[in-house]
């Protein structure tokens, strides 16, 4: 017998396509649209077979504060390999989103992939689309798979805000940029412009605090119920106690930003951070945090051949531009675009993961889009457990698919506003 070992598997998957129940034709005009089409499974779907992240800890204080971004990324890659049991030799490309690393982190992340056990045949790139870098990384990989450029890839994101947050992340603006109004606006700090936007768009402090408190409460509940256990993989790192200067090895297992007992009432006492009469403060904005996340993507046919568990599929994504000073409205513009591309309405979506950069912009987007608050960030968001900039977009994939699967729901949207005035959104279908 000279049959290749994969022969039987290949034949089985070939013949099993004959029996797919969803290959039933749509005979009614117009029914070939919308939700039904989205829920169909095809061999060329780009699917997620593993989506994990490190625990998120507070920048400068948490247990990850002494860990370099590349190390955190390497540990997360190791965890991804061990959880998914993917053969690292089969991974053709890795994209890592990050915002603050000088040089985009390109060199360090290639090194991190090698250190994590990927062979030198696995390519690596880093990218920076500000706060949507993690999502952009996943979308890039998905599109590469769709076009046949690669078969298996990893979208990921990392940010060590402890070690890399600061003025060094942006170079001086030239006269050309400084003298162009819209261009110069790209430099306005997020907090300042969000404060102005909250004022202009009349998002009250009370609304923001209520939203932020609910994020905390949801996250506390989710943490107690262990709803993050599936997405968080512990990492073991060195940590220096700031009081005793003593260095020790610790295993970090959970997010440290999630605090119990927070109410709108308790948040109302915090002083505004960016203006005396302002409404934004540390309690209703995203936390400054360290973290890494990674998502394993491949074609459905490949996943079935390799026996990988399919968590869900990537459907499509949108990216839009908005005025730099109104960057917070990004999701409001990006979500309708992606829904239209997917051929579904906002009510077809079961869960929205919308990044809570600031409660103000998130509250405004939800109201303007008319989204049901119960569907948004059911396990809390960046206000409660942090927003490691480049990591968040990839983090949302795991958070979203895990919750959709747990609750038996199907369609999810992940979205975020993007600094300098953009928005991104993507549609995912859990299985």
């Amino acid at each position: 017998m000279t049959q290749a070992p994969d022969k039987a598997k290949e034949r089985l998957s070939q013949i099993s396509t004959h029996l797919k129940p969803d290959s039933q034709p749509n005979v009614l005009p117009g029914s070939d649209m919308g939700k039904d089409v989205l829920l169909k499974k095809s061999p060329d779907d780009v699917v997620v077979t593993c989506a994990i992240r490190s625990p998120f800890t507070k920048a400068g204080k948490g247990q990850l504060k002494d860990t370099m971004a590349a190390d955190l990324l390497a540990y997360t890659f190791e965890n991804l390999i061990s959880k998914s049991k993917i053969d690292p030799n089969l991974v053709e490309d890795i994209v890592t989103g990050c915002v603050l690393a000088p040089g985009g982190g390109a060199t360090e992340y290639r090194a991190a992939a090698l250190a994590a056990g990927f062979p030198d045949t696995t390519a690596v790139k880093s990218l920076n689309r500000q706060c949507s870098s993690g999502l952009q990384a996943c979308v890039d990989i998905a599109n590469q798979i769709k076009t046949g450029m690669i078969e298996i890839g990893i979208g990921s994101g990392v940010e060590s805000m402890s070690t890399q947050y600061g003025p060094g992340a942006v170079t001086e603006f030239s006269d050309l940029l400084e003298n162009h109004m819209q261009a110069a606006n790209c430099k306005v700090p997020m907090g300042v412009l969000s404060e102005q936007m909250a004022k202009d768009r009349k998002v009250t402090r009370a609304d923001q605090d209520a939203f932020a408190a609910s994020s905390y409460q949801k996250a506390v509940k989710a943490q107690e119920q262990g709803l993050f256990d599936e997405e968080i993989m512990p990492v073991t790192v060195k940590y220096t106690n700031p009081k005793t200067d003593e260095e020790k090895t610790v295993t970090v297992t959970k997010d440290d930003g999630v605090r119990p007992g927070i109410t709108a009432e308790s948040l109302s006492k915090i002083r505004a951070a960016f203006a005396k009469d302002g409404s934004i403060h540390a309690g209703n904005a995203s936390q400054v945090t360290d973290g890494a996340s990674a998502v394993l993507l491949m074609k459905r046919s490949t996943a079935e051949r390799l026996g990988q568990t399919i968590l869900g599929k990537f459907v499509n994504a949108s990216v839009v531009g908005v005025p730099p000073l109104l960057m917070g409205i990004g999701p409001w513009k990006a979500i309708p675009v992606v829904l239209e591309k997917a051929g579904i309405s906002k009510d077809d979506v079961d869960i929205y993961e919308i990044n809570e950069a600031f409660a103000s912009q998130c509250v405004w987007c939800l109201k303007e889009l008319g989204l049901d608050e119960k569907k948004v960030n059911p396990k809390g968001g960046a206000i409660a457990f942090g927003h490691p900039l480049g990591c968040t977009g990839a983090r949302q994939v795991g958070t979203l698919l895990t919750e959709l699967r747990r609750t038996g729901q199907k369609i999810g949207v992940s979205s975020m506003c993007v600094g300098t005035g953009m928005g991104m959104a993507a549609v995912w279908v859990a299985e």
Partner: protein
Amino acid sequence: MLEFRTQGFQGYAVKYSPFFDNRLAVAASANYGLVGNGRLYVLELTANGIQCLKWYPTQDALYDVAHSEVHSNHLLTSSGDGSLRLYDVSLAPEFPIATFQEHSREAFSCSWNLTSKATFASSSWDGNVKIWNPERQQSLLTLPTHSCTYSTQWNPHTDGLLSAVCSDSHLRVWDLRTPASANNHLILQIPIHSAPNTINNARLQPTFPPSEALTHDWNKYRSEVLATAGVDRIIRTFDIRQPKGPVQLLQGHTYAVRKVAWSPHLPDLLLSASYDMTCRVWSDGGGAPGKPAAELGNMGRHTEFATGVDWCMFGNEGWAATCGWDERVCVWDVRAFMSG
């Protein structure tokens, strides 16, 4: 109904001999054709039921069988290892008299040229249809489809006209009489899933997603008509003079259709075998205007996927043979299952 058990081997194809009215060939495979050996059975209908005249072991699964149109004892098989093998039943040894190995993946169908009778064709999951002469080791011609090709058939009326259906949901027709120009003899490429010809009102136009086509057959009386079927459970008839879309849609099977065969006796009668374990008899109306297509009968004796059907060319016009993954070959009279 007569039965024969292909013990331990699941049927993939059954064909009546064009020379002997009592002879059948069955291509069968162990482990549902996924891994392991195949077996070619040569069966005879006798007064004592179906008897096995001979069987041949093969190294890989067998997916199709065709009788030679020139030599009454020659049988051709197509196999999981991509090979085509020619057997002579009148000879003693249990190995083939010729092997044709060019396909790089599973050879899923083979068809003997019904008009010139000098050549045969094969189709494979490697995305090629190949034309062969049994006296030559190398193929005469390779016709790429770039898509897993489940079925190839010669037109029974016109020499050089050949067709195939593929997993890309297209029906291709080649005319080997045309010069081998850039389009490589390809004269037609019809999307099987396109809207039916008969529907003119754009608003009511039904839409069908593309779907893998698994089988097709040329009508034995109407030289331009053929039927296709596959994963979307619909049997469609096409008239290659109107290559825009299907003429008739025959719906009823509840799972993918694995095999269709037009009757050699009646111009409108079609037999199908399906993953829904039934074999069904259909009339496409015979192409006469106003005569509706209809399902005429349903044979549900198979207890697993029904994979092969063929009509007997001799005797009464209703005799047919079917095989399936239940390891049974059934020989039955179609008329007994027709409702009227």
